C-alpha cells in the first residue's frame, strides 16, 4: 500500500474576490521508502501540495490518505499530533529556533509529546544524528553562528529526530550554493537509504531531480509527469486535467 495517496486534490487561494487556482485536481501515490522529487517551475504549486501533504494546509477539495488514514475532517489538534508523530519538515530557509543551540534544536520535537523514541535513548539518538549530519563540533552553537549548509543539516537532523515515516522538504537547496545544495541532497539520500524514511522534496533544479526514485512534475497546478524508477506512471485524471487546459 502506498504511504501517501493524493486523490484529485484541488486548492484555490483567494485574493480578495479573485480565485487563484493553485492546484487544479491532482492525483498521485508515493511508495514507502522512496526518495521523491516534486519538480516544476516557480508558481507551479509545489509548495501548495507539500503543505497539503504535510497537513499544514487543507485542500479545497479532494482527498489525502497518509499511511492508510484519510486526513479529511481532522481537527487542528489532531492534525498537529499527526504531523508531530509521522512527519518531519525541512524548510527552504532552514527555520531553526534562533534561541536554541544545535543540540536543543534537534531535541526540540522530542519534547513536544509522545514519539517513537524512548526517553532513555534520546541523548544517544540525538548524538547519532548530530554525527550523521557532521555537526559534532557545533553542537553547542546557536543557528546564527552556522553557515547555511550547516543550518540545513541541523534542520535535517531535527526532521528525523522523531523517527517520522515521511520527511517533507520544500526547496531545501534553494538558499544554498549548488555544491552545498548537492551535499544536502546527498545527505538526504543517504539517510533515506539508511533509515528507510520516505523523503519528498521539491525543487526547480533539474540536476537535483535526477537523483530521485520518483519524480512528480507540476506545471500550473497540474501533474505533467509522474515517473517512478524510469517507469512512467502517468495517471489518467492528471492527463485529462492537463488536456483541458
Amino acid at each position, binding site marked *: 500500500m502506498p504511504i501517501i495517496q493524493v486523490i484529485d486534490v484541488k486548492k484555490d487561494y483567494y485574493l480578495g474576490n479573485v480565485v487563484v487556482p493553485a492546484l487544479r485536481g491532482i492525483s498521485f501515490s508515493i511508495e514507502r521508502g522512496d526518495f521523491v522529487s516534486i519538480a516544476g517551475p516557480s508558481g507551479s504549486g509545489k509548495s501548495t501540495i507539500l*503543505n497539503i501533504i504535510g497537513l499544514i*494546509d487543507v485542500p479545497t477539495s479532494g482527498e489525502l490518505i497518509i499511511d492508510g488514514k484519510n486526513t479529511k475532517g481532522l481537527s487542528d489538534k489532531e492534525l498537529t499530533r499527526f504531523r508531530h508523530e509521522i512527519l518531519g519538515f525541512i*524548510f527552504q530557509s532552514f527555520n531553526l529556533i534562533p*534561541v*536554541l543551540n544545535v543540540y536543543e534544536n534537534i*531535541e526540540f520535537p522530542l519534547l*513536544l509529546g509522545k514519539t517513537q523514541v524512548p526517553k532513555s535513548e534520546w541523548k544517544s539518538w540525538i548524538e547519532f544524528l548530530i554525527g550523521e549530519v557532521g555537526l559534532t563540533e557545533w553542537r553547542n552553537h546557536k543557528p546564527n553562528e552556522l553557515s547555511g549548509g550547516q543550518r540545513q543539516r541541523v534542520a535535517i537532523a531535527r526532521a528525523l529526530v522523531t523517527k517520522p515515516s515521511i520527511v517533507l522538504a520544500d526547496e531545501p537547496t534553494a538558499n544554498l550554493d549548488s555544491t552545498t545544495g548537492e551535499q544536502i541532497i546527498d545527505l538526504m539520500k543517504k539517510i533515506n537509504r539508511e533509515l528507510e524514511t520516505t523523503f519528498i522534496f521539491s525543487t526547480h533544479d533539474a540536476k537535483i531531480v535526477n537523483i530521485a526514485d520518483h519524480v512528480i512534475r507540476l506545471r500550473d497546478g497540474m501533474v505533467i509527469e509522474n515517473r517512478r524508477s524510469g517507469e512512467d506512471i502517468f495517471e489518467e485524471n492528471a492527463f485529462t486535467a492537463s488536456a483541458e487546459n
Partner: protein
Amino acid sequence: MNVVLLRIAARNLMRQRKRTMLLAGAIAFGIMIVTIINGFAGSFVKNISDNFSYLMGGHVFVSGSEYTPSGKRISIIRDDSVIMQALEDSGQKWVSLQKTSQTIATLIFEGKSMQQTLTGIDLSHSGMIKERLALVDGNWDNISWPNAIIISQSIAKKLNVLPGDVLVAQLQTITGQNNVGEFRVAAITIDSSFVGSMMTYVQLEYLNSLIGLGKNEYMSLGIMLERLEKSGPFANALYTSMKGMGLNLFDRSTKKEDGSMTPFQAMLLEQKTEQWTGTKYRLYTIDDVLAQAQQIVVALDTGSTVVLIVLFAIVMIGISNTFRMAMYERIREIGTMRAIGVQRNEIRSMFLYEALLLALAGAIAGIILALIAMGLLTFISFDPLSPVFLILKRGHFSFYVPPLRAIGNILLIAVLTLVAVYAPANAAAKLPPAEALRTVK
C-alpha cells in the same frame, strides 16, 4: 507546562534585551512607587499607634464614668477588683497594666506659669517610663519621690527649672474645688519624640490625693499587650468577660453608618447624651481612638492601587503592542513550531510565559528598588517639633510593606500583563501554520 517552551520564552526575553529592559523598567518603576506608598501607609498607623500607645499607656483601655450627686460627670474606677477578675477570666495575655489618672494643671515657678496635662502613674513601677524616655537632666532614682514630676526639656526651658526645683500646681478636684500641690522636678526628658515632649508624668498616688480620688481609685486602666495587632481580639474577649460579670458597659459596636463618625466617636457621643447611675465602663483600643488614621491608610492604599492601575494601563498598552510586534517578528518561528508539532494552546502559553516572566522580573526589580529607596529615605532625620513627627518612628521615616500587599501587587501586575498579552498571544496561536510559514519578513 512544557519546560522547553518556558525556556524559549525566557530566551526570547533575553534576545530582545533593550525592549525587555524598557518594559520591565516601566513595570519596576510602577511597582516601586506603589510599594513605597504601601510601605509608608503600612507603618503610618503602626507609628501613630505605637506613639499613642506610649502616650496613653496601653493598647486596650478601660475607664469608668459616673455622675456625682451634683450631676457632674467624672472619670473614675472606684474598685478595680471586678475588672481584674474579668481580665483573668477573659483568658487573654497581657504584658503590663497601668493605672492612670489625668488632670489639667497650671504649673508655676518663680512667676512663670503654663498649663499642662499631668499624667499620674506609678512612676517607680512603670517599665515604660525608663524604656521610652531619655533624660537630659536629673536622675532615675529621683522618680521614687512621692511628689516627683517628670517634665520635658521644652517645658523645663519655659519654666526655667532644674532638677530638685519645686513647682506649684494649681488644679481642681473631680468635684470642682480648687486645690494646690507641690511637685519636685525629678527628671527632665529629651524632646526625643512628639510623645515625650507632650507628656508630664507625676506619681499617681499624689495626684489622686490632690484631685480627691481615694488611694485605690484611678481614672483609667491601660493594658499593654505583646503586640498592637492583638488589641482587637483582646478587647472583644475582655468586653464579653466584663459583661458576664454584670458590669455596665458602653456598647462597643455603636456605629454611624454614614461614616461621618468613627465607632469611637459614636461611643463618646453616646456617653455624653446618656444618663445612668453607678459606674458605667468604657472599653476601647488604640485602634478605636485612631480609626481616623486607619481611614487615611485605607485612602493611601486605595490611592496607590489606583496609581498602580493607571500606571499599568499605560504600561500594558506598551506591552500589548510590543508583543504584537514580537508576534510578527517571530511569525515564521511560530509557523515552524506549529509544523513540527507545537499545539495552538502551547504557542499561546509560550507568549504568556514570556509576559509572565517579564512581569515578575519587573515586579521583583521594582520591589528591590523600593526597598533601597525606603532604606535611603529612613536616613532623613526630622525635627522633633515638626508636624509630621507623630507619623515617624523616632524622628525618621519608617516603612512597613505588608507582605500580602506586596504579593497582591505582584499578582495584580501579573494578571494585568497576562490580560494585555492575551490578545496577541491568542492571535499568534490562531495563525494558520501555512500562512505563518509563507510569510517572508
